[in-house]
């Protein structure tokens, strides 16, 4: 009978699933594809947003120079022929020096009076040249005049772009009060020129709390790859997931220009990893110690087979000192600022608690007593988002952030390399010192 069976099945073949090789190839590639991850995406975001910020900043500087040439020779309480010329040349330069992207639109009901609607688009490039404007005089309400004065008084808004946005921000211009824009702008610029150096020294103080989703990015240690138990990956994938974590911190930023700052801070960071293990240890690995690799597995006797069931949270606590670099771009004056901030931080592991599966033997090990961990690490954090002014010197932001450690928290004796990562929302309050001069 045995011979009959043997002869019948000696060349027995099975149908191989079409995707088998792709899966095997993927496993053999191992962790090679993981470095592509979010770190690079985050870095690209930072570069792009920082570039936009610098571009806006540089264009604002050009606009200041242009606005300084703006002058007036005459003004009256009506729309002059010159101002009509501006309107008529809206879509084409008046001469080589003149370019206006303002969307000037006469108020339909009062086209030939002193009232009209001016609605610049956010981000418009504004250049006003004296040769093209002989006189512009517009009636403003008290409130709008206050806005204009406010804009001129604020050192961080001293570029023409910001001032003109302030001036033209109202949808309908009032009838009673009169205000001479060019003179005011010129006076304002002259007045504030002398105070410019003082603006460089301003500081922000920040307080932040960040609920986050955090965990460990696991890779194998290339030198000890052979000691990874064949069943570890599956156990890890099924039994470990990101946990709800948090960070709290304080920071101080010093502005080197009105848009760019450097800062430092102190953070308490808790990275939590959720574990829910349910697996069977049915074999023991056999080793070739000279080559640091597992050569095979010996099946355990039935009474030695171990069923591991464990649910819990692993917690890694860090004290962090971030060094920060950021760019602030006002988006809506007195309302919204855009911030792009990147920090490099020193991370010190204060404590670790919980249980984690051993990558070689598959048994649960107590994290607290596991010595194969590094205390110190470096990491980076990226914050990009909008901050809202709730007071003249207080901003609140709820902005997304992404953080990752550069190195593994395990040392070189470990089979695995674990890097903590977290992402979530940074709820921040920023107190602006000497930012507002009300």
């Amino acid at each position: 009978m045995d011979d009959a069976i043997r002869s019948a099945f000696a060349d027995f073949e099975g149908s191989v699933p079409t995707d088998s090789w792709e899966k095997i190839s993927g496993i053999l590639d191992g962790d090679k594809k993981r470095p592509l991850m979010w770190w690079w995406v985050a870095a690209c975001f930072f570069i792009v947003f920082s570039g936009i910020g610098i571009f806006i900043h540089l264009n604002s500087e050009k606009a200041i120079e242009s606005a300084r040439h703006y002058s007036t020779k005459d003004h009256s309480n009506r729309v002059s022929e010159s101002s009509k010329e501006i309107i008529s040349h809206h879509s084409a330069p008046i001469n080589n020096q003149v370019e206006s992207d303002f969307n000037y639109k006469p108020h339909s009901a009062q086209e030939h009076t002193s009232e009209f609607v001016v609605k610049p688009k956010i981000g418009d490039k504004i250049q006003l040249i004296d040769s093209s404007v002989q006189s512009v005089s517009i009636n403003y309400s008290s409130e709008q005049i206050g806005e204009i004065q406010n804009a001129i008084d604020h050192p961080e808004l001293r570029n023409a772009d910001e001032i003109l946005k302030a001036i033209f921000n109202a949808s309908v211009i009032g009838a009673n009060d009169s205000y001479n824009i060019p003179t005011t702008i010129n006076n304002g610029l002259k007045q504030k020129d002398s105070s410019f150096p003082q603006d460089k020294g301003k500081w922000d103080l920040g307080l932040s709390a960040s609920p986050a989703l955090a965990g460990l990015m696991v890779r194998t240690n290339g030198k000890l790859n052979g000691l990874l138990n064949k069943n570890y990956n599956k156990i890890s994938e099924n039994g470990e997931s990101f946990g709800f974590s948090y960070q709290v911190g304080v920071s101080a930023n010093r502005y080197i220009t009105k848009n760019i700052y450097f800062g430092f801070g102190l953070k308490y960071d808790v990275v939590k990893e959720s574990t829910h293990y349910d697996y069977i240890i049915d074999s023991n690995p056999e080793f070739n110690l000279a080559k640091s690799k597992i050569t095979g597995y010996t099946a355990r006797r039935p009474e030695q087979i171990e069923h591991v069931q464990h649910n819990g949270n692993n917690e890694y606590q860090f004290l962090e000192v971030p060094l920060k670099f950021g760019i602030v771009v006002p988006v809506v004056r007195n309302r919204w600022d855009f911030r792009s901030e990147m920090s490099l931080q020193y991370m010190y592991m204060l404590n670790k608690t919980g249980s984690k599966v051993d990558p070689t033997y598959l048994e649960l090990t107590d994290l607290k007593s596991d010595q194969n961990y590094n205390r110190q690490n470096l990491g980076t954090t990226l914050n990009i988002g909008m901050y809202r002014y709730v007071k003249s010197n207080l901003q609140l932001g709820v902005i997304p952030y992404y953080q990752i450690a550069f190195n593994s928290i395990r040392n070189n004796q470990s089979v695995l390399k674990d890097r903590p990562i977290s992402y979530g929302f940074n709820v921040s309050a920023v107190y602006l010192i000497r930012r507002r001069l009300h």
Partner: protein
Amino acid sequence: MSSEEELVKQCANKNREAQKELFEKYASRMMGICIRYMSNTEDAKDVLQDGFVKVFMQIESFKFKSSLYTWMSRIFVNLCINRLNRTVQTLELTQEHESSTLNEENENQPIWGNLNRDQIMSEILALPDIYRVVINMYAIDGLTHSEIAKALNISEGSSKSRLSRARVILKERINTLKKS
């Protein structure tokens, strides 16, 4: 690749093309082993995958003392057994099973009749794990009772007992099939 030796050498150097060539050359036969041992196709697919990963990770240790097929088939058989062992209850042989060793039938007696291989295969696959594994290991893969006992963590006597019981069950089922 010109020869199997060169193929193995390239695989040991992590040459992905060589690994793919080796996979394509042996995948069907290894899948055959997996199907023979495992009771369902999904498990067989998993073992096939794990087996080739293990082959590529350990191929440096292959010294051509046996054929590559034999070396690989041992890896796959061991993986199948390990996987079956995870289901702890399959290892627990009841007293009824242990004591059910029957008389050895006449080994030379023709038993297949007109049955085709697929029918016989389905009957072997329908055997309980403990019997299917032993009959596969002994009758098809040519392992001795000593080797089977070591692999399954059982005594040689248990190995013989299971093989005997497997034959009886198989014979009964084949006879039923013939009659029907």
